[in-house]
C-alpha cells in the first residue's frame, strides 16, 4: 500500500476518523495495529522482521539501562545492533555479495522488505541513544513498537530520532482543524511533486537510462537532459513522499523531523548534505562520521602524519567510510557505492581546498555576498550533484561510464548550430523528432514544465519564510484557486498508475 495507491486513500481517512473517536488510552494500540496492517499489505510474513527488530532492540535497551557494568552494556549494544543489521544484511545484501564474490548460482532472490533500511536505522538510533544515556529506555513495549512501526514513516522515513517522537506518543492531542488542513495541504503538495513532476519526468529519464546504447542517443545533450530531469525526479519523488509522510503524521497530531531544505539551492556540497535527506545525513553524521573521526583522532597522538594534519586525516577517513556505507545503504549495487564514494570525494576536495578558494577570492576581490557569485556556486553544486546522479540512476557501472564518456559528444556541433549559425530550424526539427519518438502527451510535457516552475516558485517562497504562510495571507478566492489548481493538475496530468517511490525500494 503506497501513499499514492487507491488503498491508502481509503485506509488513511478510516484511520483518522477512528483515531480521533477513540479515547486517548487506546490510541497507541490502534496506531500500532494500523501500522502493522499497513506493513502487512506488502507481504504479511515480513511483519515478523519488524517484530524481531522491535523486540531485539527493546530488550537490549532495557538491559543496557539495568546493568551498571560497562562491558556488559557494550555487549548488549553489540547484540542489539547485530540482530537488526544481520537481518538487513541478509535481506538486502546477501544476493549482492553472492553476485560479487561468486557466480549467479545460489542467488536467494529475496524480495526486499519495504522500509527495512529505515526502520532498522530508527531502531539503531534508539539503542545507541540509550547506550549514550541521551535517551531513557521506554518501558512501554507498545509505545516503543509504535515508534518503530509508525506507519507514516514506515516506507521511507524520515529516520526519526527517539527523543523527538516517543514523547509525543504520551501527549494527548485533540483534533485540530488548523493542523488537519495544514497536514492535508502538505500531503497535496507531496502528491503534486510525486505524480506530476517525478512520475512524468521518469518517462523521459527511463527512456534514456534504460537504453543508453540506442542509436538515437547520438548526442550528449540527451544524457545531460536525462541527468537533469533525474535530479528533479529523485528530488520530487523523495521529498514528495516526505511531504505526504510529514503531512499524514501532522493530521494525526505528530510533528516529524524535516527531511529536505531546498537542497538544489546549496552553494557547496557540504551545504547540500545538510539540506538533502536530512534525517539520514544527520544519522550518518552522528552515528558514523563523528565516531569514526574521533576514533582516528584519539588513536593518532601525532599532530601531523605525512605532513598532513591529523584533523584532515580524521575528516578524510570519516567521510570516505561514511559515504561508502551511505552509498551502500541506498541499494545493493556497485553504482550506489560509486555514487557514495564520488560524493565523499566531492566533500573531501571541498574541505581540502577551503583555503585555496579563499585565497583566490581574495586575489580576485570577490565577495561571497555577490549575487552572481552565489548563482555560480549554486550552478556548480547542482551540476556536480547531477553528475553524481548518473551513477545513482544508471542500471550498471558500464552504463554510467558509457553516459559519462558520451556526455560531450556532439555538444560542439550543437553549440555551433545554436550560438554561431543560429540554426534553430534544424534544432527545432530534431527536438520535434525526438519528442514524437518519446511518445509523450504534450499536455504532460506542459504539466511537467509548469510543475518544475511551481516547484521553483515554492522554494523561492520558502527561502523568504514559508509558502504556506504566503498563501495564508492571500484572499480566500486566490487561496482556494491555488488548491483547486493543484488538485486538478494532479487529477488530469498526474501519472496514471501507481509508480513506487524510489526511496521505498531502498
Amino acid at each position, binding site marked *: 500500500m503506497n501513499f499514492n495507491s*487507491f*488503498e491508502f486513500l481509503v485506509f488513511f481517512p478510516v484511520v483518522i476518523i477512528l483515531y*480521533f473517536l477513540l479515547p486517548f488510552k487506546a490510541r497507541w494500540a490502534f496506531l500500532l495495529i494500523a501500522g502493522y496492517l499497513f506493513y502487512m499489505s506488502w507481504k504479511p510474513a515480513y511483519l515478523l522482521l519488524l517484530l524481531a527488530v522491535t523486540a531485539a532492540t527493546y530488550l537490549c535497551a532495557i538491559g543496557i539501562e539495568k546493568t551498571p557494568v560497562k562491558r556488559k552494556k557494550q555487549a548488549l549494544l553489540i547484540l542489539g545492533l547485530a540482530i537488526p543489521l544481520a537481518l538487513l544484511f541478509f535481506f538486502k545484501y546477501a544476493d549482492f555479495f553472492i553476485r560479487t564474490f561468486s557466480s549467479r548460482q545460489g542467488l536467494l532472490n529475496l524480495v526486499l522488505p519495504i522500509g527495512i533500511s529505515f526502520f532498522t536505522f530508527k531502531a539503531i538510533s534508539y539503542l545507541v541513544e540509550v547506550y549514550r544515556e541521551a535517551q531513557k529506555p521506554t518501558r512501554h513495549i507498545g509505545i516503543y513498537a509504535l515508534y518503530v512501526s509508525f506507519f507514516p514513516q514506515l516506507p521511507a522515513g524520515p529516520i526519526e530520532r527517539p527523543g523527538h517522537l516517543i514523547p509525543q506518543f504520551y501527549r494527548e492531542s*485533540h*483534533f*485540530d*482543524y488548523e493542523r*488537519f*488542513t495544514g497536514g492535508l495541504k502538505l500531503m497535496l503538495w507531496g502528491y503534486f511533486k510525486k505524480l506530476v513532476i517525478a512520475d512524468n519526468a521518469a518517462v523521459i529519464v527511463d*527512456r534514456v537510462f534504460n*537504453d543508453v546504447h*540506442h*542509436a*538515437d542517443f547520438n548526442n550528449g545533450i540527451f544524457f545531460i537532459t536525462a541527468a537533469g530531469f533525474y535530479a528533479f525526479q529523485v528530488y520530487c519523488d523523495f521529498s514528495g513522499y516526505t511531504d505526504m509522510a510529514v503531512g499524514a503524521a501532522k493530521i494525526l497530531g505528530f510533528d516529524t523531523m524535516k527531511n529536505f531544505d531546498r537542497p538544489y539551492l546549496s552553494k557547496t556540497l557540504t551545504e547540500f548534505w545538510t539540506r538533502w535527506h536530512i534525517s539520514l545525513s544527520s544519522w550518518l553524521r552522528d552515528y558514523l562520521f563523528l565516531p569514526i573521526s574521533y576514533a582516528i583522532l584519539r588513536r593518532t597522538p601525532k599532530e601531523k602524519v605525512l605532513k598532513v594534519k591529523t584533523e584532515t586525516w580524521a575528516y578524510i577517513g570519516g567521510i570516505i567510510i561514511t559515504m561508502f556505507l551511505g552509498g551502500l545503504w541506498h541499494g545493493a549495487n556497485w553504482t550506489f557505492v560509486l555514487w557514495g564514494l564520488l560524493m565523499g570525494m566531492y566533500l573531501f576536495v571541498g574541505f581540502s581546498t577551503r583555503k585555496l578558494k579563499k585565497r583566490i577570492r581574495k586575489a580576485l576581490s570577490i565577495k561571497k555576498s555577490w549575487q552572481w557569485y552565489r548563482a555560480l556556486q549554486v550552478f556548480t553544486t547542482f551540476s556536480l550533484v547531477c553528475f553524481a546522479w548518473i551513477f545513482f540512476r544508471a542500471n550498471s557501472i558500464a552504463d554510467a561510464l558509457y553516459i559519462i564518456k558520451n556526455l560531450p559528444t556532439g555538444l560542439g556541433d550543437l553549440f555551433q548550430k545554436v550560438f554561431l549559425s543560429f540554426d534553430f530550424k534544424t534544432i527545432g526539427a530534431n527536438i520535434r*523528432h525526438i519528442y*514524437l*519518438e*518519446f*511518445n509523450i502527451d504534450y*499536455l504532460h510535457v506542459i504539466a511537467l514544465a509548469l510543475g518544475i516552475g511551481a516547484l521553483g516558485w515554492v522554494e523561492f517562497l520558502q527561502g523568504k519564510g514559508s509558502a504556506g504562510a504566503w498563501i495564508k495571507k492571500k484572499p480566500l478566492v486566490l487561496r*482556494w484557486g491555488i*488548491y*483547486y489548481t493543484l*488538485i*486538478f493538475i494532479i*487529477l*488530469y496530468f*498526474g501519472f*496514471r*498508475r*501507481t509508480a513506487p517511490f524510489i526511496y521505498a525500494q531502498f
Partner: protein
Amino acid sequence: MKTAAKNAKDREVGANPRVRPFIGLKQSILFILVGIAIFLLLETFVFKQTTLDQDIYETIKLAETAGPYPEVIIGDSVARQLYPTGPGKKSLYLTSNQAISMVAQYILVDKYISRRPGQVKDVIAIFHPFTLANNLDQVYTFNYFFLPFFSKEYDRYFSPLVFSLMNKCKYCYLYRQGFIKKFIKKHLEHFQVDFSTSGNHPFGFTGFPTAERIYLAPIAVEYLKKLEELCRKNRIKLHLLCPPLSEKYISDFSFIKTQIQENGLTDLFKDFFAKMIFLKKEVFKHDDIHYKTSFHIRSRKAIIRNMRTGSIEFPETPGEKLPPLYSKVAVRRVIRSN
C-alpha cells in the same frame, strides 16, 4: 466592543476540545462542493475526450455499427499503425491494443460477424508475438479489458479461466458494479488497477517478455482456439500474421513453437512464422515494438506488402522510396518456419 466579545467567545469555543472538530466544518463542506462543481464543469466542457483508452471504445462502436465488409482485420497497436481503426476500402480495421487480450479480440470478431452473417470471408489477425503472451496480466488490462469488456453483458464469452484471472484484482467485484464502473470510466480515467502486479503471469514470467521468452499465454491459447472455431463455423478463413519485428527479437522461437504444437495450433501459425521478417532496430521506437512515426507513415504500404508476402525486398515498387533517414533500412534475416 462587540468584536472583542466575539473573539473571546471564539477563543473559548476553540479551547473546548469537544467543539474543535466542528470548527471549519462549514468551510470544508463548501470547499468540497465547489471542488465537485469545478470537476463536473471540467469533465463536461474541457476534458471530455482525454480518455486513455478511448481507442478501444471506438473499436467496439465500429464492430457494432460498421457496414458489410468481406475482410476484417484485427490486431494490436502495431497492427493499428498499419491499419488505423476504422472502415477501409475493402476491409474493416477492428484494430486496437494488445492490452485488450485475445478474449476481447474474439468478442470483437463475434460482435461483427453475428451482425453480418455470411458476409465476412476472411479474418486477418495481426499480432506482435508479445501480444500472445498477454494473460490478462498487463499494466493496462484494467483500462483496456476490465472496464470496456468485463461486465455482465459479456459474461457469456468468459471462461472460468477469465473469471479466475480477473478475480485476482483486489476489489474486482466492487469495480464491476455498473454505477461504479460507469463513474470510473467517465470521471476517473486516470484511475488504474495495475494487473501486472496481480500474479497472473504464466510460467512465472514477470515483466516484459524478451526474445528468449516469447510464449503463448494460457488465455491466448484458449481464445485462439475459440476464434478458430468461430471462423470455421461461419466458413471464414482465419489468417494469423506477424508484423515485421525488430532485429532485437531474432530468435528460434523454440519455446512458443513447442507450445503451438502441443496445443494443436500448428496450422493457424503456419504463415505467422513462414512470413515473419525482421527490420533494423533504427526504424523502431524505443520500445523496439512500434515503428517510428515517420517510418510507418511513409513506408506503410511496403511494410504491409512484406508482412503479407514474407518478402524481404524492401521496398521494391518504383515511386515508393523510403525517406532518406531510412534509406539504408534492410531486412536483416528471415526465419522460415519448419
